[in-house]
């Protein structure tokens, strides 16, 4: 038996198909994964993402600590509520995890890390926090629900307490707001659509989920979450990057803050060395026209250049063909071949995302 979120019984009662995800028993779908996917692209869906771990970091030197801990620079966070996406690296540049961090006050930042990496993340964060006098508090008392889709905010707003709804509707993209009673709403997500991620006390989660259902949000499982994030060109930790690769080999160079040069974040010297000599591999998007589906670990062959591997692959419900991400030699051009069930298929190398705001990206 795996770990269970506060909504586990609710999902089982709704006859969700439950699977193991990073040690958690999570709904993979509630019926048709493709219909759930389309609900998010066209209207509004909701996801139980309580398996993800919220970590509060408090202390007078918390900003200084995070400037050391993270490859992106929290000095960019000027206005309270602003969020930043970053990798957390080993000294050798390997990715421990990717995460979102919110600046709430000069003494309080909040991080959201992946479920499967939670324990090693907490260990790593604590090992470095002491020197800065920063306290590290995982918020196991909070559930998290993501509402995503072009109509998600409007539909979900009526389920929130009025003053929280007003504050939430006023949020700019990539900002969060801490409300009363441990509720927190952020205009973030993992689908490529507008929406909120809402943290709330676990005791209120089942009732809130029911209110969202009544408000017309479609319950969605992790299956749709995966096809949505892949269409949006977003990496999945454990698939597309891990401790054996750097952000530069994972399509995440844009999340590394090189300036100011004096900022000594963990992993910096390894990344600088890799950048100077040139990363040998890169992460790219793949598209195939044939009736076959890219899956992680399939072999990629780039004629006269070398080999690589599909890191994530799926059938894209929006494009109605297969898309994927692959780690390939840096010199890979516009074409490659992928071995699928013993046969080689032609693939086009593209720059993610594949889908933005519900529509195929022009170059796709």
């Amino acid at each position, binding site marked *: 038996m795996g770990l269970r979120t506060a909504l586990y019984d609710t999902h089982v009662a709704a006859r969700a198909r439950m699977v193991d995800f990073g040690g958690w028993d999570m709904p*993979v*779908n509630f019926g048709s994964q493709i219909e759930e996917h389309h609900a998010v692209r066209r209207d509004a869906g909701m996801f139980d993402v309580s398996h993800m771990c919220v970590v509060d970091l408090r202390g007078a030197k918390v900003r200084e600590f995070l400037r050391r801990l993270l490859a992106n620079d929290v000095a960019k966070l000027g206005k309270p509520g602003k969020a930043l996406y970053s990798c957390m690296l080993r000294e050798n540049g390997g990715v421990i995890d990717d995460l979102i961090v919110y600046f709430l006050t000069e003494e309080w930042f909040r991080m959201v890390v992946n479920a499967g990496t939670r324990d090693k993340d907490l260990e790593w964060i604590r090992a470095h926090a002491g020197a800065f006098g920063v306290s590290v508090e995982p918020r196991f008392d909070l559930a998290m629900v993501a509402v995503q889709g072009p109509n998600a905010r409007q539909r979900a707003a009526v389920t929130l307490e009025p003053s929280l709804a007003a504050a939430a509707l006023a949020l700019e993209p990539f900002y969060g707001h801490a409300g009363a009673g441990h509720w927190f709403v952020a205009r973030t997500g993992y689908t490529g659509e507008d929406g909120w991620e809402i943290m709330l006390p676990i005791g209120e989660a089942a009732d809130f989920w029911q209110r969202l259902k009544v408000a017309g949000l479609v319950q969605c499982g992790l299956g749709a979450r995966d*096809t949505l994030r892949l269409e949006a060109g977003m990496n999945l930790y454990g698939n597309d990057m891990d401790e054996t690769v750097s952000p530069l080999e994972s399509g995440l160079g844009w999340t590394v803050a090189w300036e100011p040069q004096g900022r000594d974040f963990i992993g910096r010297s390894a990344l600088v060395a890799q950048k100077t000599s040139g990363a040998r591999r890169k992460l790219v998007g793949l598209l195939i026209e044939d009736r076959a*589906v890219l899956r992680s670990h399939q072999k990629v062959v780039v004629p006269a250049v070398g080999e690589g591997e599909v890191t994530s692959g799926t059938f894209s419900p929006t494009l109605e063909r297969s898309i994927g991400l692959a780690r390939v030699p840096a010199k890979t051009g516009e074409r490659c071949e992928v071995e699928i*069930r013993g046969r080689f298929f032609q693939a086009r190398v593209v720059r993610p995302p594949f889908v933005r705001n519900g529509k195929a990206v022009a170059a796709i």
Partner: protein
Amino acid sequence: MSNVPADLRYLKSHEWARLEADGTIAVGISDHAQQALGDLVFVEAPEAGRRVSAGEACAVVESVKAASDVYSPVSGEIVAGNADLGGQPELINSDPYGAGWIMRIRPDDKAQFAALLDAKAYEAALAADTH
């Protein structure tokens, strides 16, 4: 919870087989299998005329989640693949025992059909799988 019609025969690998009035055998995947696979997106059905052996992988069903081989329950000749599945693979999800049939086979030996699992035996195999 899945539907296992009493009048069909089954393989442990989740194919169903039905003896038709013309002596051919229709083959598809069970309701349990389609639920486990999730939304079907591609189906590669075999072409008419192909010889197959019992237990041979002769079709592929691919869902959003995974690809899966479909095994022939009997030895014989393929008389038809379901062409409708090319444009509508979701027929397997909506009607696994009807419009979602995958192929029809003329068996060399009807005794092979009689030796397949009956509904009770398949249900028992499913129950053993989930415990």
